């Protein structure tokens, strides 16, 4: 299972996780204040994660109003934006996360797989 390429720390960890079973997901949700849209997005993504990624994900919710500098660094334009940092490739999901189907496909999760 080891890759011949030079590996970064995260890749090593990722591989280590892979050997144990499934990939670990690092997700970040950027919201702009606690608007109804934001709370809806938070609730939606939490549910998807619990349903499909229980135990192998970390989700961080960041309020852009509190940390505006992050918006530059992460190239955030829309709110809410969900960033899939790991596993690669990087993906972005914008909107209130109500379209579960799209997120599941986008995150490359087989529906029903626990």
């Amino acid at each position: 299972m080891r890759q011949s390429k030079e590996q970064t720390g995260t890749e090593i960890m990722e591989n280590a996780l892979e050997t144990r079973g499934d990939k670990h997901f690092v997700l970040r949700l950027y919201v702009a204040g606690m608007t109804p849209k934001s709370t809806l997005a938070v609730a939606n993504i939490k549910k998807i994660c619990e349903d499909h990624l229980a135990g192998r994900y970390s989700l961080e919710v960041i309020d852009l109003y509190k940390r505006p500098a992050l918006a530059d660094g992460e190239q955030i334009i829309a709110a809410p934006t969900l960033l899939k940092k790991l596993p690669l490739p990087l993906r972005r999901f914008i909107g209130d996360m109500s379209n579960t189907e799209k997120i599941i496909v986008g995150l490359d999760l087989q529906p029903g797989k626990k």
Partner: protein
Amino acid sequence: MATVRKKAVKPDGIEKCPTGISGLDEVTGGGVPKGRSTLVVGGAGSGKTLLSMEFLINGATRFNEPGVFVAFEETAEELSKNVASLGFDVQALVAKKKLAVDYVYIERSEIEETGEYDLEGLFVRLGHAIQSVGAKRVVLDTIEVLFAGLPNPAILRAELRRLFRWLKSEGVTAVITGERGEQSLTRYGLEEYVADCVIFLDHRVTDQLSTRRLRVVKYRGSAHGTNEYPFLIDEQGISILPITSLGLVHEASTEKVPTGIARLDRMFDGGGFYRGSSVLVSGTAGTGKTSLAASFADAACRSGKRCLYFAFEESESQLVRNMRSIGLDMAKWTRKGLLQVHSSRPELQGLERHLVEMHKLIRDFEPQAVVVDPVTNLIKVGDRLEVTSMLTRLVDNLKMENITSLFTSLVTDAGGAEAAAGVSSLMDTWINLEDILSNGERNRGIMIMKSRGMAHSNQVREFSLTDRGLVIADAYLGPSGILTGSARETHEAQERAALTEQKNELKRKKREIERKRKLMQAKIEELKAGFEVDKEEMERIASEGREKDAASAAQQTVMAHMRKAD
């Protein structure tokens, strides 16, 4: 507030934000609307990014208004590299917190829409950037990228509307760039949201020559120039010809400047051209237009004035070499910094670019005399109408600056006078050079067609190019018109011969008279001598008579005594 309040409150109530871009502030009557959004529309490569960047940089460096540049197409590094070639140091301004550059990266393939969203992220970034430098000016270049990068245009449109409202409420002056569209002004109809001021940039190619033009399509609440104005992008950024400041309001000078030919000065009421007037020298090929122009330039430099010479046919060294043959040392003036020769092929660039470039050179060099040789070559790069309109602007501009200008115009034999006449009405003085063909010779004639505001000679004179400069000869009229070349020489020789003959005749007559006088004197002497002789003779006879009388008396006495008479 660190903002410099400009005297921007116009009578029409719109407060303006100066762009500092040369010419644009004149066209817009002071700048873009302050605290509002301006849309800059143009095709690819029309100079949108540059115009907006210059707006920000001028704001930061000259008007103490920091700015934010939101780039959607280029990264901050690319952007600062691109504009560095135009003399803008973006990085230094960023370091001084006068400017913030934010690159917004959108990759459609990375983004998945999962429901309703808004652009609050962009708002936050923008707000953050504005706060970090205390920005008064914002540029969004090109916000249309959002349409390509984000799904759901309906949301996007609503959000853009909110964005522009928000920018207005923030009190920043915004410049939004937009790609030119097929049906509407911009591809995505941005003009719907940004309706205060719309500036259109165009990059047109006619006859393989490109010209950049700028037009203010709309300016809510303010008067503005509506024409298309040519503009130029060069080492110093954008410059637009400030045409609105032009008009027929220049002061007329009564000062005269020499033409460079003493005899020609005399033909012009004894002084030359009026200062600040425009002179047209027309003529067919090889009639000495360039030589006349060079003489004028030489005369200007000789009197310590600066002269700018636009040569559209010859290189500087060629001009210098050729003019040396008529005794003009132009290199001397170049060394002294009084003469600047600017040689270029007219085909090199579009007409408007020529105009703007000439305008810039004139502004930088501040000459008192300008020569354009020949102006007709410019017709190659534009049609008659364009050339006339360009010349009108150039001439007006030169008159405003009180610069004496001399234009040469090549006239072709067929219908040539018309070509000259196309621009002649712009000119105060028109000198026509022509070939005079007679007796199997071609000679040059010079004549003043018109000279506004001064008496001038009406004669056709012959002029020749000699190693001591241009020489205008006396005019002789023969049975078939003016005598030129060898006919004139012959005539002059004849006159000279006749004069000599006359002189000799006089001398001969004088000698004759002298001789006659001498003869007369001799005769008088002779007569006098004869008279003296006669007189002597008479006297001798008289005295002899008296002696005889005395003797006879004595004889008688003796006789009487002897005869013992009485």
